[in-house]
């Protein structure tokens, strides 16, 4: 069998954890792609997908903490992980800087996740071999 030519992917996640399967499916894909020698250029959280960036997620002890799983993976692989700032702010996802800017008394987004604009997604559209969308599904 001939070797598969490496491909670079950007993964766009639009489904929230514990509401949809999107973050789990995307993580399974990302792990498989990396182990097959492909690159993940960027993970971009959009719409309800930004909830994956919340460090305040408290999953029951017998369930997987998808925020932690994703955080560990992107830190190990050094993959840029971006939550769309417009989607995030509307949904109460703020980092330290935005918490100060909007005078909020807490923040729930921290590295390796960052809050940035849709320009990051546009950049992926022009540079990644493939941009894949992991959506809520389930009739939504």
């Amino acid at each position, binding site marked *: 069998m001939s070797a598969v030519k490496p491909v670079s992917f950007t993964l766009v996640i639009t489904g929230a954890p514990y509401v949809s399967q999107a973050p789990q499916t995307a993580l399974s894909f990302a792990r498989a792609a990396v182990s097959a020698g492909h690159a993940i250029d960027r993970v971009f959280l959009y*719409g309800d997908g930004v909830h994956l960036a919340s460090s305040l997620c408290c999953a029951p002890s017998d369930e997987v903490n998808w925020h932690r799983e994703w955080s560990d993976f992107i830190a190990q692989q050094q993959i840029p992980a971006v939550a769309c700032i*417009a*989607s995030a702010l509307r949904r109460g996802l703020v980092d330290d800087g935005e918490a100060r800017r909007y005078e909020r008394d807490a923040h729930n987004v921290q590295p390796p996740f960052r809050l940035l604009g*849709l*320009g990051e*997604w*546009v950049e992926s*559209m*022009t540079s990644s071999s493939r*941009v894949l969308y992991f959506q809520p599904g389930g009739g939504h």
Partner: protein
Amino acid sequence: MSVLVIVDRSPYGSWSGRESMDMALSLAAFDQPVTLLFSGVGVNWLRAGQDPASIFQKAVERNLAAAPIFGIGALLADQQSLEDFGLDASQCVTGVMPVTVEPTLLARFDDVVCL
């Protein structure tokens, strides 16, 4: 690179259409060719004279009016969906182009985005 962004959600029942529109506007802002296609219940975005003030939302017509100014190439509408909702061009905002959605239409674009 040319991108088709499809809006197939109703204008006020879901935020998805607005976030699709934001994607299209961002592409245009970075000088990337982008076209919008409204289909299914999404064609209701195109109705002229919307007044959603009573449900505390801003009319999406303003977003559509801004589309050509910001460089979005065209506002396409699925002809069948327009008929399903009893809409004709005279009831729509200006600049809408009815089209038949078929594989050859989608094949004209390098990427198709549908949230």
